[in-house]
């Protein structure tokens, strides 16, 4: 098969620190090539070199037999290389159709025509997105769909997908994979970056694995299995930690019923939802996107308000509570660790210490009117050590951290508030396997210490591995509860869908 792009001995360094070291990588025409590695392994940097987002410090790139060096993404796009970014690069204040045609506008644009053609194009991809909707009103999954549609729309011969499925539901993933296969059939070459190893094994033709910026393995997909991939990615095997089957006898028994939610409603998103949360136990909540699981717990945490009329009851220690702002919930010991860490989880240009101390201030720190820098540093050092947050130095800004470490900062920011109930929403989304294992350890430790822990996740193996009880959410309410010992993916999915 013809090699369409080849990188030879590529190195890319940021401020002298190499993110990618002497990597040789080739992409063949019409293949799906999975690029795997932990966060910070250099996957995104490598693909950014291909897509002209960053320039390689050394090494060469050969495209169609010619040595090239794209200076801008536009240049790469013109040469047929498109990249779908992990963080969507859409303009929030523009409509879906406008985003789709951004940069390809005509001198005179007829808005109606743009919408019609965008509608036809989105339908051809099986993406249920309204072209007239403002991007800022879309959920993460739909934003991702628009991003993918934009890349496909440019008729690129190489499309690089960076974590394309992280926010998609299983159903949406199926559509996405069908789309990728259609693109492949048309001769488009795909680079597919994912943390979901099963997806890489299922869809790709070849796999390349990076660790600490270096290429550690590359070959045909049939030569790999999950064990081999994990071992190559992290240098040790984690399968037993991440994908263990739970034994009924080892499940934590429910402690005191700390939270009783009865028939809470919020518009048509949360509908008469009832459940209880117990201390000393991890309650896993599974549901498809749109099932109301996040919204339910945001109501519990005071981020959203439940319906004023007949909105149900929330009882904390048998006393009814109604929070109008999250601060009241935090003071009562209910902490919500967001699924969207980039926009809700932290202040990205502030340091780890400032972020963690911010959590303390939000909880009503008694000396909030004056910030003691020494206290802040001490607190940061304590939590950085406890959560094993790895950064270049103590003053590192959160934006400079890898996804896993960013997530740990968000967790630390919540835990510093000394909660009794911790709600983790997609705690390992966009986090590599090594960090996933660490985050799982933190979550397990909290439950062992007697806290009531809720883990919302759309990743079934995570739910089945972590939870002591599994609640399934559908159409705005909890419809079923499973014990992890008896639950199967089929049973959970049936409950989530029907």
């Amino acid at each position, binding site marked *: 098969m013809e090699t369409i792009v080849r990188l030879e001995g590529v190195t890319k360094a940021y401020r002298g620190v190499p993110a990618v070291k002497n990597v040789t990588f080739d992409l063949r025409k019409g293949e799906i090539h999975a690029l795997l590695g932990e966060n910070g392994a250099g996957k995104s940097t490598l693909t950014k070199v291909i897509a002209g987002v960053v320039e390689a410090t050394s090494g060469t790139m050969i495209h169609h037999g010619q040595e090239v060096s794209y200076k801008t993404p536009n240049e790469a796009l013109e040469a047929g290389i498109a990249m779908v970014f992990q963080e969507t690069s859409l303009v929030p204040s523009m409509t879906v159709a406008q985003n789709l045609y951004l940069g390809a506008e005509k001198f005179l644009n007829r808005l109606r025509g743009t919408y019609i053609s965008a509608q036809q194009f989105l339908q051809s991809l099986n993406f249920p997105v309204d072209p007239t909707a403002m991007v800022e009103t879309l959920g993460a999954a739909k934003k991702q769909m628009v991003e993918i549609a934009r890349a496909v729309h440019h008729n690129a011969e190489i499309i690089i997908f960076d974590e394309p499925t992280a926010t998609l539901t299983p159903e949406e993933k199926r559509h996405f994979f069908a789309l990728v296969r259609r693109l492949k059939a048309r001769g488009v070459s795909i680079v597919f970056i994912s943390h979901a190893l099963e997806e890489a094994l299922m869809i790709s033709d070849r796999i390349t694995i990076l660790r600490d910026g270096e290429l550690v393995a590359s070959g045909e997909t049939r030569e790999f299995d999950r064990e081999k991939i994990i071992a190559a990615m992290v240098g040790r095997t984690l399968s037993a930690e991440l994908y263990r089957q739970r034994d009924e006898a080892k499940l934590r028994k429910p402690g005191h019923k700390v939270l009783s939610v009865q028939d809470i409603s919020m518009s048509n998103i949360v509908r008469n939802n*009832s*459940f209880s949360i117990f201390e000393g136990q991890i309650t896993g909540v599974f549901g498809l996107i749109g099932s109301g699981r996040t919204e339910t717990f945001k109501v519990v945490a005071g981020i959203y308000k439940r319906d004023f009329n*007949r*909105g149900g009851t929330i009882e904390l220690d048998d006393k*009814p509570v*109604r929070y109008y702002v999250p601060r009241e919930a935090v003071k009562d010991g209910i902490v919500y660790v967001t699924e969207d860490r980039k926009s809700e989880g932290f202040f990205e240009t502030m340091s780890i210490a400032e972020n963690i101390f911010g959590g303390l201030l939000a909880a009503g720190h008694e000396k909030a009117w004056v910030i003691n820098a020494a206290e802040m540093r001490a607190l940061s050092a304590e939590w950085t050590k406890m959560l094993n947050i790895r950064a270049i130095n103590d003053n590192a800004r959160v934006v400079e951290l890898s996804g896993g470490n960013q997530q740990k900062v968000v967790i630390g920011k919540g835990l510093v508030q000394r909660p009794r109930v911790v709600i983790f929403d997609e705690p390992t989304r966009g986090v590599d396997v090594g960090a996933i294992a660490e985050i799982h350890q933190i979550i397990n430790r909290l439950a062992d210490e007697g806290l009531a822990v809720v883990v919302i996740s759309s990743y079934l193996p995570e739910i089945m591995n972590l939870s002591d009880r599994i609640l399934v959410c559908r159409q705005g309410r*909890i419809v079923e509860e499973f014990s992890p010992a008896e639950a199967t993916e089929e049973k959970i999915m049936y*409950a989530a869908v*029907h």
Partner: protein
Amino acid sequence: MILDPILDYFRGKAVTIPPLDGAFRPNTRLDDAHAFAALTEADNLAFRSGTLIASSGNAVYTLTADTEPAVLESFPSPVTALAVSPAGELAVALETGKLFIGGKEVALPSAIRCITALVYGADGALVLANGSAKHAPSAWAADLMEKGASGSVWKREAAGGEFREIASGLAFPYGLHPVADGVVVSESWRHRLLRIGGSGTPKTVIDKLPGYPARLSPAEDGGVWLSLFAPRNRLIEFVLQETHYRLDMMAEVPRDSWIAPALSSGRSFLEPLQCGGIRTMGIHKPWSPSRSYGLVVKLDASLQPLFSLHSRANGTRHGTTSAVEKDGTLYVASKGGDSVLAIDIATAEGR
């Protein structure tokens, strides 16, 4: 938050049903259980001289393993409650409101006409639950739909004499359990258990039950078995709030098709709540809303729930009205499932 109770008066209070979790976490233990005996509308269970007896229709049966139920005693109308005295004497209440002890009819105050439960205290005093002042026991659905609260509890001392009312204004008392300083009563329509002491003032010991509680019986470890004969569900709770609709329904719709709890369901397509809400792709969803359910709860000595046994929406052992324990085996009467079940308690508890 402080104003909520006042605001609720104007905006309407939300219909809240306690979720089936914690000690009430659903399982299939009743459906998985061994059928000890097939008995049409098996209702009240008790032990007499070590033998299990059960009421069914107009008779009381003795039940032994691997044999057909044998009639112990027959009556002119359906039996609604039974109890065995410490001396082994059988007390039987009938649908007509009559009470027989040792085969002889006992004179009762005229206010007693709906005996739903009988229990002897350790001292030989007999306590009875009078479910409603208006309806017979079989018309319990009508009492619920009328939001009846005319039930009462009566006591006759061991020495004999008249029955004396010890509590009134109860919403269908359906189970009794003697305790040192009085009696614990299950109040079905208010989904709670009350302790009625010497003072006569009822005190709630557990409330917000997820179903309608029926009979109580002692466990061998000092705890209590509580049977719940039907589930609470949102639609029924809603109908209970809609007075005009409810009255029209009672006036115009046959009782079997009321939007009301039932001892069994799913046998007629005329029942409310059918189609996709119940069954999808050929699978009867266990979590679907159901008018009937089977639920037996083990309470500890302080009457707090420990664990429970279920027959869910897709099960058949519904309408659990009574459960009794002997030698590590729990016997459950499934009135809706026409059977008496035998369950090894250690296995059910997960020990």
